[in-house]
């Protein structure tokens, strides 16, 4: 079963086209990076995939079924979503926040079973926060908060993960830490990951494939080396960047500002 299929998807806000005829598939164990300039429709595409918005035309299918046809609890056991800058109240502890991920599994009166606690413990260990489970969310750094959100998504035990800019406001160390973690989730657990990334270098380094969205149209889809070519980037972002192949990373591209 294909985790996410998007077919000829179009969407408009108040008559203004945001997405035009987008098609792609997301495979198990794959990290697909969604890139593009501001306002290209990346977040909209992610929200359509999660079922928060309904397609204007075309279809979205999660494991074969449109998101709106899934019972909400059932869908939450298959697909986890972390919106950009997702809010958790500062008075929640790390443990309470991660246990929220068990919501689609909890039974009568929301009393957690041992299997729920075990899943939350495992998720916390994965992101390296096991020792901080009694901390309050309000006391965490941005990187720690982002890792808690990832742990919450992991606690849902999803097979598909939708992430909107999980590295914004993080320093380079935490950006790398969070994205390495996401890669490991995909590789070791076979989770399909669709991740919106703003930073082209991070996208080139950590994604298996890239989808370049420009003005609501998917202009390129494939290996980072093919998608991030100098001429294409010049067409999209203007002549302000240069692209170098990185010898330390199988020739994956590095994007640098042009010296004028």
């Amino acid at each position, binding site marked *: 079963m294909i985790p996410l299929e998007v077919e000829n998807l179009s969407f408009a806000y108040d008559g203004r086209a945001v997405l035009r005829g987008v098609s792609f598939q997301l495979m198990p164990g794959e990290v697909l990076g969604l890139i593009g300039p501001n306002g290209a429709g990346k977040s909209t595409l992610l929200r359509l995939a999660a079922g*928060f918005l309904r397609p204007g035309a075309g279809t979205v299918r999660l494991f074969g079924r449109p998101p709106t046809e899934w019972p909400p609890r059932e869908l939450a056991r298959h697909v986890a979503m972390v919106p950009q800058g997702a809010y958790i109240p500062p008075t929640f502890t790390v443990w309470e926040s991660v246990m929220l991920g068990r919501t689609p599994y909890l039974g009568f009166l929301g009393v957690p079973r041992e299997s729920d606690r075990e899943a939350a413990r495992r998720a916390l260990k994965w992101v390296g926060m096991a020792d901080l489970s009694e901390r309050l969310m309000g006391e965490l750094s941005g990187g720690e908060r982002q890792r808690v959100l990832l742990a919450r998504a992991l606690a*849902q035990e999803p097979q598909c993960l939708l992430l909107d800019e999980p590295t914004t406001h993080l320093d380079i160390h935490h950006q790398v830490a969070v994205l390495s973690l996401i890669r490991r989730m995909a590789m070791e657990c076979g989770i399909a990951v669709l991740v919106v990334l703003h930073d082209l270098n991070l996208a080139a380094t950590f994604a298996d494939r890239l989808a370049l969205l420009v003005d609501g149209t998917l202009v390129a889809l494939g290996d980072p080396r093919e998608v991030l070519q100098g001429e294409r980037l010049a067409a999209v972002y203007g002549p302000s960047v240069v692209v170098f192949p990185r010898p330390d990373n199988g020739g994956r591209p590095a994007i640098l500002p042009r010296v004028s």
Partner: protein
Amino acid sequence: MHSSRSHNSSSAGGGHLEGDRHLNLFRRRRWLFLALAFGLLLGTATLGMAWGAVSIPPRAVLQIIGQRTLLTGLLASPPLPDWPPAWETILLEIRIPRVVLAGLVGITLAVAGAVYQALFRNPLAEPYLIGVSSGASFGATLAIVFIWRLGWGGWNGVSLAAFVGALLATAAIYSLARVGRRTPITTLILAGVAVNALLSATTVFLMFSMQDAFRAMHVLGWLMGSLALADWEKVRTILPYVLAGLAVISWHAHTLNVLQLDEEQAQSLGVAVERTKGVLILAVSLATAAAVSVSGTVGFIGLIVPHIVRLLWGPDHRFLLPMSGVVGAISLILADSIARTAFAPRELPLGVVTAVAGAPFFLYLLRRQKREVF
């Protein structure tokens, strides 16, 4: 699972001690506190039954209750009572129903406050925000103006009118706030403020145009809250609505935790947000309307009790709801006992006691707390 070492350098080692310091005793031993609070509730209820114009020793209160509930059936010849028979009548006909009613109203208002604060993600939310109080006041005032003597299903006219008024006002606000298929919180709060203002103004105008000072006083008493007319009939009447409402709310305790997040996160965690909000608002409005219909509008309990519980024991609604209920019951039983004894034989309005006693205590807690509270 074994290769996670590379990313947890910042948190490896010694974290347990550090983490423990961050959660205080209240939060780690919270279920013990709930048991203690429940014991305190039973104690407060006993004292509430003992205090009054005729003072009855707490021991006699317990003996009379015990005899009435358990021992009469078990013993062939019950022990000879060593108290005046009038005590039994006072207790069974007046004090116990009043304390029970105060407890029910207190539970309902406090739990309702917790639910509204969670649903609206707004610390100022309280049971009266979306029309229950102003609708009930308006209905009650209409009934007092036109002297409704009709009773229906155990309701006397004023209570029935208050109950219906509360539900109608809530329904009106909810439907006015609808935008397409959704009911955004901000429009709901704004519609609530507007309808409340309109209904309150109309209520005051009705009061203003009353020729009869006695009836105007009746309305005023109702607006400030009072349990002076408590009896078993009122307990029986509101019990089904209160129990049904609380059952539905308890069922959704964890969902209320999830609703603390924004709606997209709640949805992605498997919560059908709009449907759940609708169900909860219906349940909480029914229970609150029933409570308010017998007590008048008792302010402050619904606003501050959930805040006090959240300050001390954290935001988990599986604990916050039962603890708020128990603390709400204790507060209202205590407040009502003060209201009827402090200036006996005159009764203080209940709302005056809850505000005068509650506000300073709440401000004290708020000042002591260093971090954000909501």
